[in-house]
């Protein structure tokens, strides 16, 4: 399958959405709204739930199932208030020692007048910095589309996983093609060049595992649940300093020319 086939798969209408994962993996999910500064961005769904007996904070970018919901959720393109809502929940998770689990599915942070006026760049930057030192385990899963900074703002984590038919990219293939060849229809070539698939990113050490979609939904959800428990239990063995040192080093090592020699 080509990179562009995977891009198309990641964008298919009938793919599982963040809310489908949340419903299947956790119990008693209670949604918490608002960033306490401006509004409630419905592109981001955040709340508290049980992972078996363990309280966890769950944050997701949610595309929406039908047309009305998609519009209401702005197709998971978050505004700054969405990232600030996510950060507020992460800070609460830290206060109450809950692990944070993020489901990422967005073509990117929203590009618009309001988003710029309210500091899209500042909101994303703050999440990156705060997540790097958040004193609880963070696991992020790219479930379909991981669109650039808008995805990374929920993916500075101890482990980052990708679904088999998900993509994670610095720029959309269309955007890349229009910059490179002034022709956005050459997106298949661009997708190939960008190395945005799970196996490529796994080989670069940018993600930690690719999750097979060649299994039933029940098996898939069961696998993710088990893996979450494993990843959290491993992090719980560490001191806070060790946890943060490992997270820092995980990102520190990416693209270090000395380390690559």
């Amino acid at each position, binding site marked *: 399958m080509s990179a562009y086939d995977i891009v198309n798969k990641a964008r298919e209408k009938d793919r599982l959405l963040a809310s489908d994962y949340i419903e299947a993996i956790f119990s008693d999910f209670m949604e918490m709204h608002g960033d306490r500064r401006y509004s409630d961005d419905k592109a981001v769904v955040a709340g508290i739930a049980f992972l078996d007996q363990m309280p966890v904070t769950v944050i997701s970018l949610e595309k929406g199932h039908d047309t009305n919901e998609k519009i209401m959720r702005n197709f998971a393109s978050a505004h700054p208030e969405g990232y600030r809502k996510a950060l507020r929940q992460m800070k609460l998770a830290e206060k109450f020692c809950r692990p944070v689990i993020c489901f990422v599915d967005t073509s990117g942070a929203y590009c618009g007048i309001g988003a710029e006026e309210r500091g899209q760049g500042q909101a994303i930057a703050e999440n990156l910095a705060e997540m790097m030192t958040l004193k609880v385990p963070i696991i992020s899963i790219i479930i379909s589309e991981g669109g650039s900074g808008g995805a990374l703002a929920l993916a500075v984590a101890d482990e980052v996983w990708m679904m088999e038919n998900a993509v994670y990219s610095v720029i959309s293939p269309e*955007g890349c093609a229009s910059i490179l060849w002034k022709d956005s229809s050459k997106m298949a070539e661009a997708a190939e060049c960008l190395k945005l698939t799970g196996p490529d990113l796994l080989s670069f050490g940018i993600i930690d595992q690719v999750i097979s979609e060649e299994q039933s939904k029940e098996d898939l959800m069961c696998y993710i649940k088990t893996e979450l428990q494993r990843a959290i239990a491993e992090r719980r063995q560490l001191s806070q300093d060790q946890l943060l040192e490992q997270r820092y080093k995980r990102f520190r090592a990416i693209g270090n020319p000395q380390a690559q020699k």
Partner: protein
Amino acid sequence: MLKKNLFKKVKSSADVSAFNKQSGPNIPDEMCLRCPSCKKMIFASDLEENLYVCNLCGHHFRINARQRIHIIADEGSFREQDGDLTSVNLIDFPSYESKLKHAHLQSAENEAVICGFCTIGGHETALFVMEANFMMGSMGTVVGEKITHLFEGATKRSLPMLGFAVSGGARMQEGMYSLMQMAKTSGAVKRHSDAGNLFISFLTDPTTGGVTASFAMLGDIILAEPKALIGFAGPRVIEQTIRQKLPPGFQRAEFVLDKGFVDAIIERKQQKEYITKLLAMHDGGKNHVCL
């Protein structure tokens, strides 16, 4: 230095950014330039004396990284770090090598940021300055590495950081490696900050994309040059997305100041004095005494 001068590309008269005050060619006194803002003719020698600001309308010309270092750092105090790091084509991106070669010729630099230590008004400071002539100051792995390494060094030595941003964002040609530099640099800024050190982030024209959405917006104090374009998405991308024209002044430094995302707009001539005072007020960024 001699080798660099051989490759220096002197740009057309409307753009003086390739002129390097320290190593560039001498500009004949009679040479004139047209200011792109007020369209009036100005003497190149006047422009240079005026730190590349139009003496008629105040338009700030884009200047290169070495010129900025010359303006800000105490004379002869700048000691560069990691100046020899160069990028490699990590993901076999088409024609990246030739782009890098071109960028090197155009800028006479090895990468899109210059990092080092200097004194500013006598205060020991870590300094990075991005270079727009090198692939529009885009952030790839080397830019991310150099900035991260500088923040780590400044943290270790309890030094304040001053950084001049100019960037089109993350460098597409390095794919996800470049996106990860946003997390990497932001993490290093956070550690520097948590250790009680000062970071002054200076935004210049233009600062956009992944640089805005990482270290550039993480300053304790964020300053900007007049009229600098500052934003996450570029104005053309926004116009294409929302299918309407953007209002005049949108995403300019004055607009961003009004929205509350920068602390002050400082003209080039005042920058050194302003920064020196800030460093003094923060005791050079160290030895804070909490009463």
